[in-house]
């Protein structure tokens, strides 16, 4: 790795669960993900070992096809690693079956995808409340207040009873963010959440994610191509060819752009 390892308290232990249960929300240990076989084999993740610490905003960057989406999907238990260990909230995703991983996702992960985030037959508010109901949690007055607060700060109050088809792309994206934050998950996984938004909406969304980290200690893992978006993060991971090639603390947009260019030139 070209850069210094990130400053986390414990170095990678042989058995990660002791450490991961405590310090890392997500822990990758030598994770590999292959697609296809034989000559058509693509190694989307190549022996990745990395920890994502709680209460921080981590950005994942890298060129197209570098394995960012695969990294997020494996981290969230949406996809199975070919080899290695993945721990989420202290649970070994690599050892769970489909139902087990579904329950971990349901109880501990909030999602924001690039597109198609909302269930079309549910209103904005119902979409936000869906994770609570799925987990069999009571929608208490406190939850309602929190959801109303989120919808207000996202400028969605007067849109709350609309179906997704009546919302703009940016509004749909904000509803998805409200949903991801509302259930107070262990980690919010966002794959290019601002990819479809104009500059202003995307700044709003980023400010909101940042505030969730600062005010509630939310853990966020976000893929982005945009140096400005990444500059909101506490930590920037750069992937290339399925490997973590850079791991930095907070950077300015210009520094991030330079970093990406350097890495591309270095790789070429």
């Amino acid at each position: 790795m070209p850069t210094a390892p990130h400053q986390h308290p414990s170095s990678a232990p042989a058995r990660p669960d002791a450490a991961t249960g405590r310090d890392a929300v997500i822990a990758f240990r030598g994770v590999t993900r292959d697609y296809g076989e034989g000559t058509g084999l693509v190694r989307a993740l190549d022996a990745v070992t990395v920890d994502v610490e709680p209460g921080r905003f981590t950005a994942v960057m890298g060129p197209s096809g570098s394995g960012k989406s695969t990294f997020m999907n494996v981290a969230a238990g949406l996809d199975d690693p070919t080899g290695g260990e993945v721990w989420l909230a202290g649970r070994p995703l690599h050892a769970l079956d489909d139902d087990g991983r579904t329950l971990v996702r349901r109880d501990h992960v909030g999602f924001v995808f690039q597109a198609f985030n909302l269930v079309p037959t549910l209103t904005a508010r119902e979409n936000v409340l869906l994770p609570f109901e799925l987990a069999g949690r009571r929608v208490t007055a406190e939850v309602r207040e929190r959801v109303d607060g989120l919808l207000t700060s996202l400028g969605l109050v007067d849109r709350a009873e609309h179906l997704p088809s009546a919302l703009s792309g940016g509004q749909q994206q904000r509803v998805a963010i409200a949903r991801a934050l509302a259930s107070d998950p262990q980690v919010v996984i966002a794959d290019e959440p601002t990819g479809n938004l104009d500059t202003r909406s995307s700044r709003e969304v980023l400010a909101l994610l940042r505030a969730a980290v600062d005010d509630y200690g939310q853990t966020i893992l976000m893929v982005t191509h945009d140096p400005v978006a990444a500059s909101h993060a506490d930590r920037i991971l750069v992937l290339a060819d399925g490997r973590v090639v850079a791991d930095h603390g907070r950077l300015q947009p210009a520094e991030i752009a330079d970093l990406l260019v350097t890495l591309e030139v270095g790789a070429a």
Partner: protein
Amino acid sequence: MRRDLVLGGWRDLGTVGLVAGLCGAYAAVLVTASSLLQALADASGGGAAGVLLAVVATVFVLVAVYVSAVVIVNAVDTVVAGRLRQVALLRLLGARGRALRGSVMRASGVVGTVGAALGAVLGVAATDAFRVVLVARGTLPRADYPVTSPWVLAPVAVVGVTALAAGWVGSRGVLRVSPAQAMSSAEAAAPPTSVSGRWRLLVTALLGVGGALLLALSAAVAEGGSAAGFLLAFAGSASAGTGLLVGARFVIPALVVAAGRILGGSPPSRIARRTAVADRLRTTRSTMGLVIGVTLVTTFASGVRALQTAVHSWSDLGAGQRAQAEAVLTTTTVILVAIVVISSVISAVGFVSTMSLTVIQRRREIGLLRALGFTARQVRSMVARESAALAGTAVAFGLVLGVLFGSLGAQSLVGGQTDGFVWGLPWPVLGAVAAAALGLVLVAALPPSRRAVSVAPVDALRVER
């Protein structure tokens, strides 16, 4: 304009072909059988039976054609709804909406005509084979039977034209697509919510209320022993039935919504309930055929059962006479049900195909639900509940209507000779219909939902553009 620009290929229109084929085969069996009976009647000297048979056969065939038309409209509409983005892209590249729609319509017409013709050939062959067997066994006398009647071409043509027209109606969605939709990130356009209609509502109400009044009147008149009762009952059923057909898009979704409440408030139930009525027209079309089919079967079964009950209560008949009358009535039930069951079969085929198609089209939504924490079981149960809300409601409604119409019909015939109103409750038929409905719900829901959850959520969610 090449057909496969909008539709993926012949597979998309499989339902159209199958439905047209069933309808063609059915019509061919009825027409061929009437020509046989006509030949029999000619051989034995009587001639009038043929005309009556032709009328009855025509009515039954028209009912089947109507149900097929509804099913085909829905099949085409569902396929087109799954390809709106593709249509939008074609429009963006310069294709005209009308031309695209025309290509869908022609494809539906061609597939419908071919299906009906193949079905007719099979129907004629099956009927003639059956006749040969009956003649060989001595059940039918030897006579100069025709292979079929030239009239068999009429239903084939009618089904073909119907498929063409249904393709036109069903592809209306193509015109609603704007080229800009190809670039929008919203998945599906909002279904048309406002269903045109103050006039429709008014006509529905008039026909429905008028029909109900006529039916009540017929029961009362017949109780007094007047023969006018049957005419009144006929007019009442016709009026109420037409009212239901005209107003199905108000009545059926409302019933499905009400029935959906039974499912409870868990997320799978709620999404199932909403999806079942997300597009009121599609909800109506995919279940209307079932209502018609089940109503027809139940009406005949219930009417005959009410007659049987009445006969049973007539103490002036001897035991032998009573047994004979009941045997005749039982045979009549079997034959009548066998003749009218086709509408149920056609609409069941349509229902299964619509359910599977819509589940396949919703794979991204299902991927999202799985990502958010729906287990595979919950997804399967969600689809099964949706299927149950739709088919269960339709079948239950058909059963109620059928028992009403059948009992009222019997009352109008023999009301004067019985004490009070006799309900015809043919339990074996009702039970069989309910069991068939349960089977239909499962067959329509399980295979597509199993396929839907076998795809990993990541693959289902992948943006394909």
